């Protein structure tokens, strides 16, 4: 099965609007899913400046799916879904 790819946006907008608190995902995800999932911090994903969408930050991408106002729980749920859990 293809690996799930998770990008946590650590661009300034997302960081200020809450991804500072998502950094724990970068340690938590590998512990939880082993090598089924790749996770990394990312520079600005370019989503915050489209139509001034800063208010929906922080953004996380799970493969192609964009998670708005991301929280640790939302991201884990999205990963579970991808893995068919």
């Amino acid at each position, binding site marked *: 099965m293809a690996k799930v790819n998770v990008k946590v946006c*650590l*661009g*300034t*907008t997302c*960081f200020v*609007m809450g991804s500072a*608190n998502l*950094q724990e995902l970068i340690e938590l995800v590998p512990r939880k899913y082993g090598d089924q999932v790749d996770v990394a911090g990312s*520079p600005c994903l370019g989503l915050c400046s489209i139509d001034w969408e800063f208010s929906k930050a922080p953004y996380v991408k799970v493969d192609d799916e964009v998670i708005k106002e991301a929280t640790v729980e939302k991201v884990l749920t999205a990963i579970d879904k991808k893995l068919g859990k």
Partner: protein
Amino acid sequence: MSINTPNKQTSHLKREILVRLIRAYLGDNFEEDVRLIPFEMRPKGSEVPFRCCIHKERAILRDRVIAGLGFDIEEAQDSELLSDLAAKAVKREQPEEHPLTLLQTACNECVPARIHVTDLCQGCVARPCESACRFGAIKVVDGKSRIDHEKCKNCGMCAQVCPFQAITKIIVPCENACPVGAIAKDEDGLTKIDHEKCISCGKCVSACPFGAVHKKSQVIDIIKHIKAGEKVIAMVAPSIMAQLPCTPKQLKQAILQIGFSDVIEVAVGADVTTKKESDEFKERVIEGGAPFMTTSCCAAYNELVEKHIPEIKPYRSSTGTPAYYTAEIVKKEQPEAITVFFSPCVAKRREAMQNPNIDYVLNFEELGAWFVALHVQVAECDEAEYSQDSSAQARNFAITGGVAAAVNSLLDENEKANAYVINGLDKAGIRDLKKFAKNGKCELGNLIEVMACPGGCIGGSSTINSYKQAAKQLDAYVKSSPDIKEIVK
């Protein structure tokens, strides 16, 4: 005690408002744009995420905007238009005196503290609750314990003895978090801050699940000077280096980019503080035989001493804070400059109010919002050099234990202080301090470092980064910095 776990939804809301306010002020239609903020955040037909209806949501957002404009929410009249308040904010000469204000419309959703019997009550035969209550306030009626709230003193004895753990104490989070009893809900369910008692530690801000305690922002006042083309200098607290995903030099560039004319590390002043405080420790404790000395750099602790423990004054170091020396240096070199202290906490606003060399305070959340408003990506900024270097020890003031360690670094082997750290002020810590002052001794050490926020300044109530990451980032910077002996000669 938990360290700086920001209430995510409420800080998201507060930051969103700041971004919109800053954008509005930097645009051409400030007053009208401010008026529209609640409507833009909750447009017609949008979901109502938190309250009963869209109108209440907007009303509450309006009140939050008032705090963002730097005014007291309680004092503003309901009939006053946001656009008028925006105009007033721009005309204001001086920021308001007390840094905190309460959004009472958000806080009446939480009930006054009281003892509550839950459904778990079995109406048992033993009824230990009845016999434990010294006020005759609890009786079993119709097979269930009931509390007479007229008589109940909230002592919680009944809860302790209940074999089913069926009785709980409902707390008011802000009351519970305040170490000095300065915030309370009265009979009518209205919460009030007693500014005579308040030490501006900001614990209520982080504790309130409704985000009802607001900081009055000075961001409009600061931008006003920048717009007027004045020379505005950023004095950044050591904790800032742990806040954003970039290097300290990129951060300087980012701050220049939003309009400041220079950036100086408050660690420069922390080097002066360290030198003076270690000399003072030697003189007072080692040579003078004083039983102990406390540090003096935490603004909330200094307010605590003034308002609640004046008897500890003779034991507190008379050395100025890092912000004090930094501002002195800047104003001496450039008396015409406007100085802005970049702060991790609320308490520094009070310190600034009492120091004519510090004109304004901008907290890290506000700085973050400013970057968002202007689309500044800090990680993409070039690096700008700081004109004055500071030491590893000074940069480490931002974390618990850092101040005491810095003082010790300048003391000789046989003079080293035995440091005791109060890591986060709470009621127990305050009791200890009172005891040390009263007895004129402290068995736990002869240098007491007091940090109002658990973890130190990087755990402050206006920080952005999560504690663990912040500690890591700060540590890396400290490790790359010169030793204090190379800076302080």
